């Protein structure tokens, strides 16, 4: 059996607020295996995004052990965490975070440039990723010429183009209508099945939950329920 993708033990995350500390996460123990399609679910302020950021190495834990893709993020330097993100992770954000001056092709190409993939291979991989999200006809468009759904599909293509082991998605459907949300989720499920990429969502969107095979409920910075779903309702 392969090593877990994410292994968290006794995680504590506090933020300084004035002269005091605000505890965003506490007593978090969590293990995620390869290929899981997991959601971190909970109300606003429950710590979903904070946990996602810590798993993504964008934020550091205050206490506890966070092992992601065989690296201890608690002790890793900024550069080491950046290297893990660059090579093994993909990010999808609520507000897409596309670079406005780049075309769809260039946005999707960015992780490959950072990974120093040669030009021919980049072109092939970008076209493949863009095709997988159904945006081949918009490949030369800039984000301001795209709809919200198309922007998010571009962001997905960017997140998966370098075939990461883990994709972290923070409220990926929050800015989308129902039809686009389902369309996006179907793409992600398909990528998960085809590439065996692990997905972790931070969401409180009911529409997403019907696709998840594992739902981790957070409340007030703690895991209150860890639910495994053998037959997600939107996939049946």
């Amino acid at each position, binding site marked *: 059996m392969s090593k877990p993708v994410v292994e968290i033990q006794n995680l504590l995350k506090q933020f300084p607020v004035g002269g005091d500390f605000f505890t965003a996460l506490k007593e978090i123990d969590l293990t995620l295996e390869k290929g899981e399609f997991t959601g971190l679910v909970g109300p606003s302020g429950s710590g979903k995004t904070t946990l996602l950021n810590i798993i993504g190495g964008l934020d550091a834990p205050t206490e506890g052990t966070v092992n992601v893709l065989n690296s201890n993020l608690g002790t890793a330097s*900024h550069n080491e965490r950046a290297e893990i993100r660059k090579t093994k992770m993909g990010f999808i954000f609520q507000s897409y975070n596309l670079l406005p001056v780049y075309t769809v092709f260039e946005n999707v190409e960015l992780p490959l440039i950072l990974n120093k993939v040669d030009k021919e291979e980049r072109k092939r991989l970008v076209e493949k990723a863009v095709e997988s999200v159904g945006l081949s006809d918009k490949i030369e468009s800039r984000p301001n010429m795209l709809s919200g759904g198309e922007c998010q599909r571009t962001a997905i293509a960017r997140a998966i183009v370098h075939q990461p082991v883990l994709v972290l998605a923070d409220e990926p459907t929050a800015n989308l209508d129902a039809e686009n949300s389902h369309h996006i989720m179907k793409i992600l499920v398909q990528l998960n099945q085809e590439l065996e990429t692990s997905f972790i969502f931070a969401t409180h969107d009911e529409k997403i939950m019907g696709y998840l095979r594992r739902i981790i409920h957070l409340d007030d910075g703690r895991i209150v329920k860890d639910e495994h779903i053998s037959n997600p309702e939107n996939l049946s």
Partner: protein
Amino acid sequence: MLFKLAIKNLIGAGLRTWLNVFVTALSFFMIIFISGMYDGMRKHARQVTIDTEVAGGSYWHPEFDPLDPFTFEDSHGQPPATIQNAIQKQQAVPVLVSQASIYPHGRIMPVVMKGIEPSQEIVNLPTNTLLEKTDGLIPVLIGSGMADYTKLKLGDTFMIRWLDVHQSYDADEGIVVHIMETENFKVDMGTIWIPIRKAQTMLSMENEATYVTVAKNVPLLNGTHNWIHRDIAYLMRDMEALIEADEPGAQIMYLILLALAGMGIFNSQILSIFRRRKEIGTLMAVGMTRSRVVGLFTMEGGMNAFLALIMTIVLGGPFLIYFAIYGIPMPIDYTEMGLIMAKRLMPVYSIALLVSTTLFIAFVVLILSYLPSRRIAKMKPTDAIRGKIT
């Protein structure tokens, strides 16, 4: 990789980039233009002084001090043989200096009377006009500044009074045979030029001179006895001091322009970082290290300067070339203010000026691009992704 991304970002930003580049190019142009003007002024002042006054240097009578008119009475004598020899070979021109008074339109006015060989070609003064027939009147050459000041016109006659070697005052009538246009106020204001033979006769100083100016490229003469050799550097020291005194002014102007260009770049970098914080967060999220993001933004600033340089060459180059060829007409005659300045100023853009300006500005731009970019290194990626500045 950073280079490619920086190019993409600059081109992708479209109008914003070109506005930044234009402002920087404008500053580039102004710095080069004004520095060229200053260099042109200096070069012109040097050239005019050498051309009309200094030539290849001088040999002075040991008593001569041009800044002390009381020395003129005693500072005359026959030049030593080696200098005489150079005069005969027309490699040198003697000048006899004395104090005199003139009475244009009945007013008394002290002047420096200089006797010079009319046929000389060593200093660029129209002394050959002193050869004109004057029916016994003393032919006098004056500059246009002197003419304005004394209200003398071509052909006007006026009384000249002088003290000869025997301490006797004498006077005679002079006639203006030529009014020269010169930018060197030192050969113009307060000076009248007459033929040296006439001066020697008037002053009873046959074959004597106060100083002898040698032609350019004449080697140092030996056996000049107590006559003091004054080289170009010595004779130009007042001019150099004037230029040196003007240096801080030029540097302040240079710094103001540089500060303008710098502020533009600094502002655009700050604005860029503020506007693009989400992009910075995204770049960090996809795996770019902070130092590389700082490098990217610094490179964008540097490329901004590079594009500005190209724009300066393309848009400003023709103007700079035009001014270098045809000059810039000056609105007033600065010689009246005691400045050696051309009526049409020719800027000089030396290779040293262009290279040093370019390198210096490029260095300043890089520093100014880097300083605001350092702020990125302090950003928390989680805040940057959300568009927050920390």
